[in-house]
């Protein structure tokens, strides 16, 4: 019966290797043995695995009091407490590699992946309950006022870097700006949900997960562009964020202007807001710098330049931004996150200038 079913299955299998010389029914090769006794049947019983591999040192109850004589006590799982983490991943690693300097051996070569997982889960289950972060709980939400977050952001494109010192500003409108805190460069703009602080799920320290859709990213050249230079030497000045301020609906970033040696030569602000163009919010950033110990000025911006009217210089950058410099504020550059200087944008910009007056 057994063999017949085997052959039936095989004959149905076009892709299985054909039996070159099928043996007659009941005539298996000599090596074959009778189907084994039930004792060898094994399901993945986590407790049985624990008893077999772990209990001699860690104790049957997991209290660390096994029968083996060790030069230092085995870990008690009842108390929890894992030097390298109590997540399944971390415990798995200890099971696979062992723990150097302790009698804990490596099981990577003797246990299969499922067995290691089962043992890890069982061991964790012996300990006290920990703080478990449910999916969604770590999502940061922007409600009625802007939110300023510090943390590590993942690389936003191939060739870009992970950014451990990021400053992320989320607005109620769903727009999220991602800056490098060390030089105040804007790297991305996203639209949609804000951030997931996924490192709550483990020991901490992993990347933030941006939830919005990328609507703008800095080009390679503009990533390293310094907005201001020393007026005399032409040396680029780094804008290090010193202070963030949520003021009503807007956010201000205050920065120090630092020379190559890290000495402060001046300071300034970046003002994050939105320009309403036909009821559509266009992200707008005004960056103002001033020198103290030395005179500073805006660095010339590469791009297509067009003089908009008597009082505004307009440049369309290679990043797809519109940058404006007002004649009467030569140390302030205003970036509009719009692809071109259209009449409606110009009108809204003009109106907002007048409004300020």
């Amino acid at each position, binding site marked *: 019966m057994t063999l017949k079913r085997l052959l039936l299955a095989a004959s149905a299998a076009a892709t*299985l290797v054909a039996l070159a010389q099928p043996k007659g029914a009941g005539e298996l090769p000599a090596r074959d043995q009778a189907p084994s006794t039930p004792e060898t049947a094994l399901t993945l019983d986590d407790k049985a695995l624990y008893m077999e591999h772990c209990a001699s040192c860690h104790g049957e109850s997991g209290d660390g009091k096994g029968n083996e004589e060790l030069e230092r006590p085995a870990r008690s799982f009842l108390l929890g407490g894992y030097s390298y983490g109590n997540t399944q991943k971390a415990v798995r690693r200890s099971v696979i590699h062992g723990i150097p300097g302790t009698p804990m051996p490596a099981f990577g070569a003797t246990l299969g992946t499922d067995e290691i997982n089962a043992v890890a889960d069982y061991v964790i289950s012996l300990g006290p309950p920990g703080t478990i972060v449910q999916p969604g709980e770590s999502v940061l939400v922007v409600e009625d006022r802007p939110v300023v977050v510090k943390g590590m952001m993942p690389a936003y494109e191939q060739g870009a870097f992970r950014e451990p010192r990021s400053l992320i500003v989320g607005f109620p409108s769903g727009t999220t700006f991602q800056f490098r805190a060390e030089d105040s460069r804007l790297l991305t703009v996203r639209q949609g949900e804000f951030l997931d602080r996924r490192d709550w799920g483990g020991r901490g320290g992993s990347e933030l997960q941006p939830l919005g859709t990328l609507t703008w990213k800095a080009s390679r050249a503009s990533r390293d562009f310094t907005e201001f230079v020393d007026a005399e030497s032409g040396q680029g000045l780094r804008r290090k964020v010193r202070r963030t301020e949520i003021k009503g609906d807007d956010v201000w970033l205050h920065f120090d202007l630092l020379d190559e040696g890290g000495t402060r030569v001046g300071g300034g602000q970046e003002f994050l807001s939105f320009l309403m163009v036909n009821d559509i919010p266009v992200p707008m950033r005004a960056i103002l710098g001033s020198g103290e110990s030395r005179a500073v000025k805006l660095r010339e911006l590469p791009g297509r330049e067009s003089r908009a009217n008597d009082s505004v210089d307009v440049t369309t950058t290679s990043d797809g931004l519109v940058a404006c410099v007002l004649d009467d504020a030569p140390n302030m550059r205003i970036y509009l996150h719009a692809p071109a200087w259209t009449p409606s944008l110009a009108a809204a910009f003009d109106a907002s200038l007048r409004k300020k007056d």
Partner: protein
Amino acid sequence: MITLAICSALFAQDPVFAASEADAYTLEYLKTPDGCVLEVGGMDFLSDGRLVVSTRRGQVWIVEDALGTDFENAKVTLFHEGLWEGLGLNVKNDEIHVIQRGEISKLLDTDGDGRCDVIETVASDWGVSGHYHEFAFGLPRDSEGNWWMGLNVSFGDPEWWHGRSTAPYRGWVLRVSPDGTVTPWASGVRSPNGVAVDSQDRVFVTDNQGDWVASSPIYHIQKDGFYGHPKSLNWTEDYRSTGKLAHDEIPPAQAATGRTTPAIWIPYQWSRSTGNLLEDRSGGAFGLEDGQFVVAELTNGMILRAGFEEVQGQLQGWVAPLRQEIGSVNRVLQAPDGTVFCGLTNRGWGGRAPADGLVRVRRTAAEAMDLAGMTLLDFDEETESFGFEIAFTHPVHADWAPTAERVKMISYDYDYWWEYGSPERHVTELELTDVQLSEDRTRLTVRSFDIFPATCVRITMDGIQASSGAPLLHPEVSYTINQLPSGALTNAYVSKVVPPPPSRGETDAGVLRLSWGDALGQFEAAGWELVDASLDPEDGQRFKTSVGNGALVNIGADATDLVTRGSFGDAHVHVEFMLPEDSTSGVKLGNLGSLNLFPDAELCGSFMGNGVAVGPTAKAFGEAGAWCPLDIYYRAATEESPGFLDRVELNGVTVIEGLEVPNAGTGRAPIRFVGTKGAVAFRNIQVKPLDRPADAGEWEFLDAGASWDDWELVGDCNFELENEELIGKGALGWLWAPVEDLGDATVRARVKINANGAGALIVRAADGDDGVEGYEVRVNASFPDAAMTGSVRAGETSAEVGSELIAADTWADLEVDVRDGEQGTTVTVYLNGVLVNQMVHADGFEPGGLALRCDHDGTVFKIQNIRVRR
């Protein structure tokens, strides 16, 4: 019980004594509102008594009326969120400062709405590479307003338990002046979770056991002190000026005599993850003498007490448990009335429940028979021995006589090495020369000939009670003897330099993880989908699938076999499979034959091929709908030898062993995962080639040790040579090998990359606009970039491998073959001897050199055994 104790105390003449810690110290747990999880990293008081709490979630909460009568129901409001952790907080003059991973920040509420709206960066001049273990701890201030903080080392390559210091001042204690100037103060710490400044402006730091740290110590921080973890030395002037980097396994030159010893080693049995500590200045309101310390302990869920004394200029002292069964105490803070607040957290670290929250600990009115202090006694001429005096809070019961049976003293020391922690070494029970009580029975003197410096002792006192009969609450105490009170100073350490143990091997080496990352990228197949699958509860012959990446399932129309792109000879195949009822499946092992998979324990694991057919020798299959791991070890037939099915394990049970397959065809061939009838799900397909192609031709080995001066570094990375191994560390940069004019050539090397690092081997390398260009073969295990190990980039052209074939921190044999032909230049990449990628580049690069590339900060790229065949 406690109420009873207090009532009795009011009505009775004799003081009522605590029978347990719980009688002496009450615990009250704050009930937090929904959405408030206090994973406490820092705490301090505002002048109006409100308690400010920062958490590992990057939030800051304010607890109103924390000292009020109804602490459990104290009001909690959110002041701020969005910090990158908050593992230390300080309030001075009502200014709130908090330490994040990347900076010390001042949090202000300028509009008075109870929410922080202004964040000022006070200091940030230290490095953050991005490794998860780079915690930043703090944040007490001294009398001059300086902040004190500690920076964790990261972990990483080559062995995950080794500390790393890849960014400035990881593994250091830093002083931050009120103007934000950061001064690296002391080095050699590993995980300095607890930082404290006492009333004399002494700085104390606790550390956590690990590599080079034998058990959990309390350091008394000295300017320019080196506390033992070598990696931090990378940032000393000496190492920086010479370009030296601390070794993973060899103790640094400072190890023998240049370490600053911890003041106290806390025994492992009491502390496995130490938090911060505080100096009790409440005038005895918490049951401790002024100037003693309360120490937070996470894993064992308790607080300890410690006392320091200066002995021949060296701080040292004693430690003992104080109140257990609290929860995972990470932070302690004392209110002026003596109350101690315990901030809990253990997420990802583990420890005693509760795992988060805030606990108010108060001393009850009950008397406690407890330790009051301990001191090291000078040499006694009469007994010719040093000794200890242990003081108690009350006279010892008249019935108790001090004897050597009742008082035991052991001594021990530790190993200083790269392994994780150290057992207590040279554990010796000391013969006592004297053990006696003072006349007033409140002080016990214990002396022994064998009290030596650079050891720890632990004294256990059996059966001590107060005259009321109340037990001594803590009959065991430990003392760290760095120096004896008189005689020559020792320069030995409690934690002694010993020969390091041998390194351990890897289990993942040589494995190709065919279904990781881009799950189908390494297969030729149609009709297979990557989904989550489980047995359909309504139809056991089908799978229910949903969006996910749990399994490769042949549910598409006209599904073919799942055939590996690469060809294999001898191999270990690991796969997990799941079958519904009545499906049949199999794995075809090159030219050897098929391993048959049925949802039937009598048949599952049978083999057929080339005239050989055998059934399984054990019933190992579980059940339909359950995942079943399968491991197959086989050897392909060669001209000289038949094929072998060496072993088949199903669910960990051997079902076939030592089967010869005489008529199998020779040579390498793909492995086919077959859905014969009905659906089948496979996952975690891994193949470890057990053979290597022959080494024909003439290889030129690059001996970097001999030619190191000819290697040239460009860009922002650094490469060093260590034990004939090149170690590259990001940011972006290249190392030119002294090889020129590579035309048609094959390059081989063993490579290894850390998690989230990325690098490349560049053949026909030349200077280009964006740095070094050429046939850039990527080495990338887990950096989120589509091009994983084995991908090729050539200017604008690329051939990417999306599968994560090689795990992080795992050696792989990489071979790159570059050959000009009629269609252009063909670049072929082999990993562990298996072809994984091929690209034809029409505009073929000119012959060029050989370079190695590091992509970005945090990369650790290792290369061994580079050789070239032209």
